């Protein structure tokens, strides 16, 4: 009986992926305990976040990919409408217009688009799988550009870049020609210096600080400088769990959310960092494997995009905390405190499991 319930519950759960996710969540809780100043309240809140997110994962994993494919366009259109709604009626918080009040719930439509955009593009290219041509890619780029620009205007540069990345992965995996990619890359490289000369001094300064935070040590650079000090002082083996002085003494700003990796790196050192990268590699590898063996075009494009977006989150977050990428608001996947990003993430991972576990149904 129990075995049957377990089987039916775990029918659409990928064991390998699930174990790595659980492992990452456990690590996340441990770091959060340290970073959050041993706050039990915050642990409880995050535990609730995890339960909700895992439920979302389970539900999504049980939805067959074909259903997801049919939902792609409605979700995209809904997301787009909400984004327009935010632009018109959104609530301003911290100088940005990101939230929308819908009666009792307050939602952040840009989060929806993190999944909605790759789903729509995968749906779009699945429709044109036989002959994806340049015009389809241009159309895809347009479908991508609209939400990206809307989110960028909020302004939320970090999220808009992540949405752009998730869409770009679909275009890329759908066979966007190398010549086109190289061409666009080359023209950006050529145009950048010209654009640079056209900017105002203060605009240049902002960009300079974005790439070199040390130019503004008490302002924008403060986070990065404190984070690199935390990481660097962690050394090879780290200061040990709960022993990170930078973390314990409040030097690291946003140390439970976007900068939680600084706490991890300080307490567990370079060895811990490498192990965390390996854990992420396992998740990414499993995702790419699922994509490679997915049977529908929609499935493989979406699985590939979700996996690569997951990778992008991890890379951008760790890159910004360790001072090689500009600071943009991106959480560390599965580790950072916060409900919204975790739910979105689990939604993506649930789709991966759905694609993996519903394969046989498709082929039969």
């Amino acid at each position: 009986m129990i075995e049957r319930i377990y089987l039916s519950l775990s029918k659409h759960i990928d064991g390998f992926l699930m174990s790595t996710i659980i492992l990452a969540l456990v690590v996340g809780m441990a770091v959060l305990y340290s970073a959050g100043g041993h706050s039990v309240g915050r642990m409880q809140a995050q535990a609730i976040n995890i339960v909700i997110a895992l439920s979302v994962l389970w539900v999504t994993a049980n939805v067959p990919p074909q259903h997801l494919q049919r939902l792609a366009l409605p979700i995209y259109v809904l997301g787009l409408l909400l984004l327009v709604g935010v632009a018109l009626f959104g609530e301003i918080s911290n100088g940005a217009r990101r939230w929308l009040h819908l009666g009792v719930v307050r939602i952040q439509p840009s989060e929806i688009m993190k999944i909605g955009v790759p789903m729509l593009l995968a749906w779009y290219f699945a429709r044109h799988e036989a002959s994806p041509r340049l015009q389809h890619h241009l159309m895809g780029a347009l479908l991508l550009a609209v939400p990206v620009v809307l989110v960028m205007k909020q302004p939320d540069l970090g999220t808009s870049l992540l949405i752009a990345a998730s869409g770009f992965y679909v275009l890329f995996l759908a066979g966007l020609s190398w010549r086109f990619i190289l061409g666009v890359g080359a023209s950006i490289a050529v145009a950048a210096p010209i654009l640079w000369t056209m900017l105002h001094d203060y605009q240049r300064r902002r960009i300079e600080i974005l790439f070199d935070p040390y130019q503004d040590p008490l302002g924008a650079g403060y986070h990065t400088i404190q984070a690199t000090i935390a990481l660097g002082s962690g050394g090879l083996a780290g200061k040990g769990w709960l022993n990170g002085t930078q973390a314990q003494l409040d030097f690291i700003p946003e140390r439970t959310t976007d900068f939680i990796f600084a706490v991890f790196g300080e307490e567990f050192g370079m060895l811990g960092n490498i192990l965390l990268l390996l854990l992420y590699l396992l998740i990414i590898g499993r995702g790419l494997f699922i994509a490679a063996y997915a049977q529908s075009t929609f499935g493989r494009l979406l699985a590939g995009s979700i996996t690569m977006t997951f990778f992008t989150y991890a890379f951008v977050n760790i890159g910004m905390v360790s001072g090689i990428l500009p600071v943009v608001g991106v959480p560390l996947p599965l580790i950072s405190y916060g409900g919204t990003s975790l739910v979105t993430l689990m939604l993506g991972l649930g789709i991966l499991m759905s694609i993996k576990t519903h394969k046989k149904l498709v082929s039969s």
Partner: protein
Amino acid sequence: MPSYLEFRNHQREQYDFRWRLLAASILVLCCFGILASRFYYLQVMRYEHYQTLADNNRISIVPTVPNRGLIFDRNGVVLAHNYFVYTLEITPGKVDDLEQTIADISALVPVSKLDRKRFNKLRAENHNFISVPLRSHLTETEAARFAVHRYRFPGVEIRARLFRHYPQGTLGAHLIGYIGRINDKDIKNLTEAGDLSNYKGSDHIGKGGIEQYYERELHGVTGSQQVEIDADGHAVRVLSSVAPVAGENLILSIDSTMQKIGEEAFAGRRGALVAIDPKTGEILSYVSQPSFDPNLFVDGIDSENWKALNESLDRPLVNRPLHGVYPPGSTLKPFVALAGLEAGRREPPFSISDAGYFSLPGKTHRYRDWKPAGHGQVDMRRAITVSCDTFFYGLAHEMGIDRLTDFLQHFGFGQKTGIDIQGENGGLLPTPAWKWKRWKQPWYPGETVITGIGQGYTLVTPLQLAHATAIFANNGVAMRPHLVTSIQNNRTGISRPVKPQVMDQIALAPKHIDLVREAMVDVTRPGGTAVIVGAGSPYSIAAKTGTAQVIGIKQNEKYDEKNIAERHRDHALFIAYAPAEDPKIAVAVIVENGSHGGSTAGPIARKVMDYYLLGKLPDAQPAAAAALPAPEPIEEEHSEAHD
């Protein structure tokens, strides 16, 4: 075969897709490789660097400011002490909209116009990142009310600070001095002295008087706490600490009652009085009138008060005993007399027949006596008693300027006395060499003549005059004048007495001293120029009066007609010591525009001496004193032009 084609396409597509996945995988590995090498760089190669930074981040040395030493008068009356005060302080650099912030604060804690003016002045004087008091002396209620709303005001803080307070107010303000906020110049001085680290955490430093001279003793040694702090600079816990050493207490030779008597005796007139114990050099009274309230300066004076004090015609901020320079006039005569006697001239029974003027040999110019008809037959003793100018014109001429000034400088003229207050003016004892250097002009014999009666270039401070009088009263033994008699360690309670210090011993023949002293005692007796001072005194007073011309009017001063007349009047000078046989006190008094040394300056000295020698408090009836009939000869002004 569409299905075949579809199948081929499908396979082809999957094939292409896997190539793309491979490319993506390579991207992932490359990016993670970059991260891993970044970890290696930060956590292995640069580990020590960041380890140091992290330690610096974590541990901060916080200074603990020592309590400033207290200042007492000779009877233990507190002249300067400290008390805790809540101040509301703003760091302008941390505040976005200063005006708005101050407006918001005013809603919680009253901020007066004066507070704002003072704040603006301090703000202009200080760096942006230094916290500047907006209001001090907050009540407990005000402090609590602000504390509740503190979160609304980043960059605004309530601090409990030790405040300096001068309970006697204006009394002796010039000698006690005051403390003020450390400015750039102070920082430069501290850096040069290597004391800067001891002032970490200190906001104030002595700015004048005792507070400045004994800064090192009063300040104490700053302690430190090694604290773990968070990034906001809040201390999390103390790791180790070195306790501060409180500053030492100072006990002054001043008697505050006597000081008060001296100050009140001026009755609103401008001037100075210095009283010295001739045997020790202890300064018993140090009066500079008008005075000011040093409490105004402690936390930065507001511009209105500053303007009032700084631009007042009465110049209350001028430390007259130290910085006020006046021609000594006839008060120089006893010293010139001694110079002559020691040079073997004018010894009794030598006398001259004074016709009312002196002329240089072969010249017709007449150097007039203040008494047009002359004093008749005058010997040395009588010359001092009646202040005969003609007698001293001739003596000075005969001695020559070099011999005269050589002798006078032993009494401290033209030199700093070495008192324990900074910024002393050394006055001026003119010589031909000085004149040539200063004016590129030769010395004229007529200038020597008028130097003999204390006119011409000669300038003295009230302190110098009192010091010279004390040296004479002490039979030529010069004691260093000083205000602090002992320094008390706050912790051990052990006092180090400041030993009287002999500066110089002038070899004077006792008979010469006796002669001049007797003549000076006669000054306060019928027939002398200060008979009013000696009237009814149970002890004998040796004294000399003097009058100094007010030379020109200082620029930038605008008076109405009445004032011009008043401020053009001569300065009245008076020196005395008593009891004449066994001097316990030597006094010099200058009353600006007081006209007559005997009648205006003399009675002030008498009140101080009466208190010191007899313990007598003044009757507080200046009207009665003024009603006394003016005794016969009162000095005239010496208005002779130079040769």
